[in-house]
Structures are given as C-alpha cells and as structure tokens.
C-alpha cells in the first residue's frame, strides 16, 4: 500500500492538519514505511474470527436519569477559554 501526496492531502483534510512543504516528503516516506509494515496482518488467517473486540462480555452500565450538574466545571472552563464572551465560546465565522 503506497502513500502518496494525494492520500496525504486527503488525510490532512480529515485530520485538520497542514503538513509544511519541507516535511511532506519525509512524512510520506514514514507513513509508507509504517503502512507497509502493518500490511503484514494480511498474512494472518482470520476466517471466522469476531470482527469486534471487547475485553469483557459485560453490558454497558445504565445510568439513572437524575440531573447532577456541577457549575464549577463550566465556570472554570469559560474563565480559561481561549475566547469567550457572555458565557459563549467565541469562534471566527464559519464559511457556509
């Protein structure tokens, strides 16, 4: 499986990362090496093996529908937020 610049661009978009020009080739090489390595799993016979893995067979715990909110949390987060005003998180405009 080869990683090329087109694939890197697609992955950058999904990751919201911009890899600088001078690092692109190196990253492509590294990712190629890694992907090439993990391809070794195709050597394993996994016929009939469960496609999902969980540590235990237990069911997810269910929580009672009882409100319990600690106001300190949002107060502290808003206080230290990069940009907040009137208890909103402020972000630059979204281009629709």
């Amino acid at each position, binding site marked *: 499986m080869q990683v090329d610049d087109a694939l890197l661009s697609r992955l950058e978009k999904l990751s919201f*990362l911009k890899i600088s020009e001078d690092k692109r080739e190196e990253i492509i090489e590294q990712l190629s090496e*890694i992907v090439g390595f993990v391809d070794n799993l195709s050597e394993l016979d996994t016929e009939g093996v469960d496609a999902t893995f969980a540590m235990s067979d237990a069911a997810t715990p269910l929580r009672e529908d009882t409100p319990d909110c600690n106001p300190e949390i949002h107060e502290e987060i808003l206080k230290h937020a990069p940009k907040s005003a009137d208890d909103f998180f402020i972000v630059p405009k979204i281009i629709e």
Partner: protein
Amino acid sequence: MITLKEALTLNKDELNKFKDELRNKIEANKDLNAYIDVNSVGEGVPIAIKDNIQVKDWSITSGSKILQGYIAPYNATVIKKLLDNGLSPFGRVNMDEFAMGSTTESSFYGKTQNPHASDRVPGGSSGGSAAAVGAGLAIAALGSDTGGSIRQPAAFCGIVGMKPTYGRVSRYGLGAYASSLDQIGPMTQNVEDAAILYDIISGSDEKDSTNAGRDDKVIPNLDATRKLTIAVLPKYVENASQDIKDAYAKAIEALKAAGHTIVEREMMDAKYDISAYYITATAEATTNLARYDGIRYGNRVEGKNLEETFYNTRSEGFGDEVKRRILLGNFVLSSGYYEAYYVKAQKTRHIIKDEYAKIFEDVDLILSPVAPTVAPRFGELANPMDMYLSDIYTISVNLAGLPALSLPITKNSEGMPVGLQLIAKAYDEQTLFDGALSLEREVAYKA
C-alpha cells in the same frame, strides 16, 4: 528514599517536613527534567502525577503545546482515591506528548534524562514518572500504559512499574490516547509499594463504562511463598540484546531457586502485535484527539475563519509524532481501508488474546523481556518504525488486556538497569504480585 509503606506511617508534620525537603531536592535536580512543576494537593503522602491525569486546578497538558492554558476543573477518579487514602498529588511529571512515544523526547517540556545516565532516555511515555522515582525524587508515581508506557520506562530506570488488567482502574480523568488499551498504574521503588498503590487506585467506578467493577484487593493476601508455574519464551528472547538475555537467564535461575516450576512456551511472531497495536491505537487516538481544536480550552491559534483556526491550532499545537499517528489513524478508518486495517486488527486481537489464554490454561505467569535493549541514547530511536519495533515485548499485553509488572533484575556492565516483566491472567493481579514479590526477593536488585 523512604518507601510508600513507610511513608504511610508518618504523621502530618513529618510529611510536611518531608515535602519541603523533597521540593528542594527536585529543585536541585532540575537538569533531570522529570518534573514539569511542583504543586501539592492535600496533606498526605506525596505521589508524582503523570501530566495526563486530571488534578483539579492544575495545568494538565499531556505534554503538549495544544493544551497550554487548560486548567483541569475536575479530579480524575484515581486522584480522588489517592486523596481518600492518605495520599497527595505532588508534582506533575513529564511524558511523551499525548502518551505517544517510548522515550519522552516528544514532550513540549523537553526531554527527561535517565537517572542512571544523563545521555540516555528514561523511556516513555511515562518517562518523567520513572525518572522521578528512579532518581529518588519521588516516593512513588502514577503513570499510564497503552503499549508499555509504564513497564518500559520502569525497566529503563530500574524501578517497578505495573499495568493493571484493562478495566481494573478507572480511566475517568485520564486524557485518552487509545480507549481500549489505556490503563493507569503504579510506578514505585518496590513490588509491595506497587501493590499498596494498586489497591488504592483500582476498583469500580460508575463514571467509566469500560470499568470491570471489581473491588478485590491484593495486599491482604500478598504471599511471596506461593509456588507457581511460570512460562518462559526462549524464541522470543532471541532477538533481544545480550544484556537482556543475561538478565533473562538470571531471572529464570532465581525463579527456580525460589521453588517455582519453569516451563517453555512459544508465542506467534510479535510483528503482528505491532501492526494490530498501531492500527488500533492510532484509530482510537485520532478520534480522541479530534477534540483538541482550540475552541473551548487550550492553546488556540486564530485564523481568518473557523477552518483556518482549526488547521492552525492543530498544526502548531501538535508535535510530529502525534501528527503522524493522527494521520495514520484517519487512514486506517477511512472508507476503503477500514475493513483491511481496523477490522483486521480487531480480529488479530482475538488471536492474541486466545494465544495467551491457551498458555495460561496450565501456567500461572509468563516471564518476558520488556524491551529489546537497555535504555537507548537520545536520538537513537528517531525513525518512527524503529521506535515502534522496540515495543515488541510490551504491546501484546495491552492488546489482550492482561495485567503485567516490570521489575529491575540486574544492571549491565555500564550500570544501566535491566528489567523484565511478569504477565498474568486477566484479573489475576494476586498471582502477579505474589510472583513478582518472590522474584524481587530472590534477585535482590540493588538500586
């Protein structure tokens, strides 16, 4: 350095005096760079906390630039447990950024030195925890282990590091790296201290849906005299350095001398473990780290519009290794590749888990190396693939969710510690600690 067991008998005044002295010691050893900063909560026995475990009102940044400015508004469950049991979070210790790494070189706060050699790494990702304990700058520390991040630095720094069975310790408040692999664990000077700390932090927690809900403790029945059947893996060790091979042989002799039965077993080629790990961990990590967008907390790098803000914040806020794993994670999850990579990796986990289960049918513990060499020098593992391959002994344990403990066996000719690990069945921490205690007493390692 006083042990945890001893420290728990000190009174408030003695502890305060101790902490003042410790602060001075830490200050005097700034070059080690094990500690990022030293704050204290409560009046109990000081425990160093890895920078990815939430302590209320502390700056908790997972060793990353992107979380600079974030102040944790809540305590992780393990921190609550510390506070309820006479322990005190004391100092934030260094780590690889977002726990992704094996050397602590990727931290925003710079590298940490190995206490035994200033030109060598302490290991990672819990390098700060291991170095602090190894240098006598902490009684004990909490670390986290996703692919070996407690056990490997413990081995490199000559201390004890233990990873509980997945689900034994609550992950609530642990900045997530790989949700199905992460566990918080104790890093201590000796096995008994690890058992004490393990008992305190483990147990049910309704805030963590993946928690196993088990509250049994190991200390009450801790028994180093139990005679166990222990499997060794001769083929496995073949690829390790001579230092490791020698330590392995020594440990086998020690176990025999202690009256345990040694049997030989084999496991499949670890190269599949590495693949299954890096696919699973990066897939989970890429989504766990997607929340770091500079909107609600942390370091935002503003752009002309929202999209640019996302790109700038993340591109500037994350280091190279984290970026690599985020890209890789999105690769293995993206349409067209999901079946071949992510699904295949989960199937492989079953094979690995079954393989261990088969061995454990008639064996109590497995003795295994932790790393292929002693602590490497800075920069030696710069190539990512080389770094990933160094995880070969620790990784399958996380994939199968088993408990394991790394303890120091000997030192090599350069004085560098060599550690080995014992692996137990799921939820069988009792046997793990019993066997480890026995081995520790037999080898009588001198720090």
